[in-house]
């Protein structure tokens, strides 16, 4: 049936450094050498820390944990581009970005070991606590974005992370729509890692890209090779600048892959093949970054070894600090339910302490 086409839209894909380490010269960003090395170091730290946490979990020294191995470029690179005024409103699969933005490894370890101490605010940094209700945090990001604009905070943006699965939730939709209407300075970064627990990307939604979902809200969307640190750099930088300069929100679909289980409680062999996972190994963002540093001639095996051993020492130290801390008090929760205390909570706290005393006496 002939109709008049009135509106045209398109979605672009950005890749600069391909999986063989080949650089698209036309698109290559100019990044200072130390920044490149720093980015790489953060990605390595994120990887090594994830691997250590996996070990700790297996040893029963922390609880359930969802590794982000394979996704380091997608979240570490944007985090490296953020400044002190920016806010990070994350989900639960970007520990690397949290560290970059100022959270300590100790804090992460408390968090994954089930202590509220892991959700305290790192000094001088605006990172909201881990948000587990899929999609919900994207709305907080828009509200924070509004507050930045409202309070006239210059050169500031909000970066919010979420997964491919999150794009199915109503909250993601409402967040994108509010962000569009308000032109809120928010960079929406979808870590499309192809899976939401056992649901493959193509069953999550029928659209061929996540990026095109921006069209529904007139929010510019771009699909990026999320394992390509240079492409993530360029896309995140552009989006951050747009946000900071009053240009409104951006949706970045970072195409990546969850190399490990969903969480340590999950068994991915139930729903996907080794072959699929193997296929993604050569696309590893760390390998790719290293190749680029080598191509730039600013990296060698000795430097790699030194950096790795440094990083591991940092992690060792954090784990030690973490395990040294004891005497977590449970009764403090009564002090933080409200900002002021009501006598009924005082009564409950007294009862709690009395019961705890009796429990210890009898135990």
């Amino acid at each position, binding site marked *: 049936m002939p109709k008049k086409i009135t509106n045209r839209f398109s979605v672009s894909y950005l890749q600069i450094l391909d999986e063989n380490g080949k650089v698209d010269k036309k698109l290559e960003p100019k990044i200072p050498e130390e920044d490149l090395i720093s980015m790489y170091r953060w990605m390595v730290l994120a990887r090594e820390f994830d691997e250590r946490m996996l070990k700790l979990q297996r040893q029963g020294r922390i609880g359930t944990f969802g590794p982000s191995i394979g996704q380091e470029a997608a979240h570490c690179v944007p985090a490296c581009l953020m400044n002190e005024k920016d*806010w990070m*409103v994350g989900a639960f699969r970007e520990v690397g970005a949290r560290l970059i933005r100022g959270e300590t490894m100790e804090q992460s370890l408390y968090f994954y070991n089930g202590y*509220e*101490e892991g*959700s*305290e*605010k790192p000094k001088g940094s605006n990172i*909201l*606590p881990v*948000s587990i*209700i899929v999609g*919900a945090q*994207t*709305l*907080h*990001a*828009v*509200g*924070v*974005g*509004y*507050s*930045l604009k*409202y*309070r006239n905070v210059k050169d500031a943006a909000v970066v919010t992370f979420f997964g491919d699965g999150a794009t199915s939730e*109503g*909250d993601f939709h*409402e*967040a994108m*729509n*509010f962000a569009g*209407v308000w032109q809120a300075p928010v960079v929406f970064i979808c870590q499309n890692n192809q899976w939401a627990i056992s649901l493959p990307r193509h069953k999550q939604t029928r659209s061929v890209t996540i990026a095109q979902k921006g069209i529904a809200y007139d929010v510019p969307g771009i699909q990026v090779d999320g394992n390509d640190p240079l492409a993530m750099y360029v896309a995140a930088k552009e989006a951050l600048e747009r946000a900071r300069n009053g240009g409104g929100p951006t949706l970045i679909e970072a195409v990546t892959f969850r190399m490990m289980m969903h969480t340590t409680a999950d068994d991915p062999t139930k729903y996907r093949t080794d072959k699929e996972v193997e296929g993604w190994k050569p696309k590893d963002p760390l390998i790719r970054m290293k190749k680029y540093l080598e191509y730039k001639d600013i990296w060698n095996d000795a430097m790699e070894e030194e950096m790795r051993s440094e990083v591991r020492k940092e992690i060792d130290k954090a784990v030690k600090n973490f395990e040294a801390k004891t005497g977590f008090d449970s009764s*403090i*929760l009564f*002090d*933080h*339910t*409200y*900002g*002021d205390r*009501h*006598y*009924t*909570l005082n009564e409950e706290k007294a009862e709690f302490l009395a019961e705890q005393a009796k429990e210890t006496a009898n135990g």
Partner: protein
Amino acid sequence: MAKLNMVQAINLALHEKMKHDDDVVVLGEDVGVDEGVFRVTAGLLNEYGEKRVIDTPLAESGIIGTSIGMALGGMKPVCEMQFSGFSYLIMHQLEGHASRMRQRSLGAWNVPLVVRMPYGGGIRAMEHHSESREAFYAHIPGIKTVIPSSPRNARALLISAIEDPDPVIFMEPKRSYRAFREEVPDEMERMEIGKAQIVRKGSDITVISWGAMMRPVIKAVEESEKELNAKIELIDMLTVSPLDDAAIVESVRKTGRVVVVQEAPKNVSISSEIVARINDKALLYLEAPVKRVTNYDVVTPYFSREMDFMPSPGRIKRAIKETIEF
């Protein structure tokens, strides 16, 4: 002193807080140009502009979710659910984030926001426009739930709610919006959240209620005093969570007899908790079972049937008589 109705009194509180605190913003559906479907936000857009009085897209989770973000960003959002019947769309944000942020971060973050919502029946409105579901909110630790009953306390409680460091659900009895006027002092007045008010002193029986039910309750109490020649103590809860059980217990110790009147259905409600607190703290003083006069445990009826289900002055009087004579 001016004689205001509740809509005007709430509106006054909003004007007062917005005037003195730039961080206070109002957002919701139709709160700006339209000045709210009940005109509660009248004059705000005109006075404070689009940035502080925000007509949002039609999405309740969007409203509360962005309000949480604003609060985290240092603002004090006062958002509106157009009717409490649409507030179930925000439960996950309330339970999952607004109520938790402070405790989960051991005080590092907090979410000082107010969610205003007209609630309750009696105005011949369509489905979903007449519920009374304060029990949902009261069951969530970390949230305070306030229900004023008159122009003066509505104004004072809203001031306090906006100044409160925590998320406050502020349920406005829409049936009382324009039902009567009351003197409201010129200077800004506050009432403590979490405190009930003894509206009337008495020694023979305690009647407890809140919100829109206060009007039929007052009528029933006044008539019962005469008809039964009894002294009735009347408590207006004002905050249903955290619950001021001290006020209840003190009264029960004196009277030994209690009637609780609520608009909500009976099952797992504020009235249940009030009975339970009396059990916990004053059982031995009871001389009769606590009598609950509530809606029935049926789906909220369409409007032509609703008044048949709503506690009426007659039903309340019968409950008072029965309990006194027990």
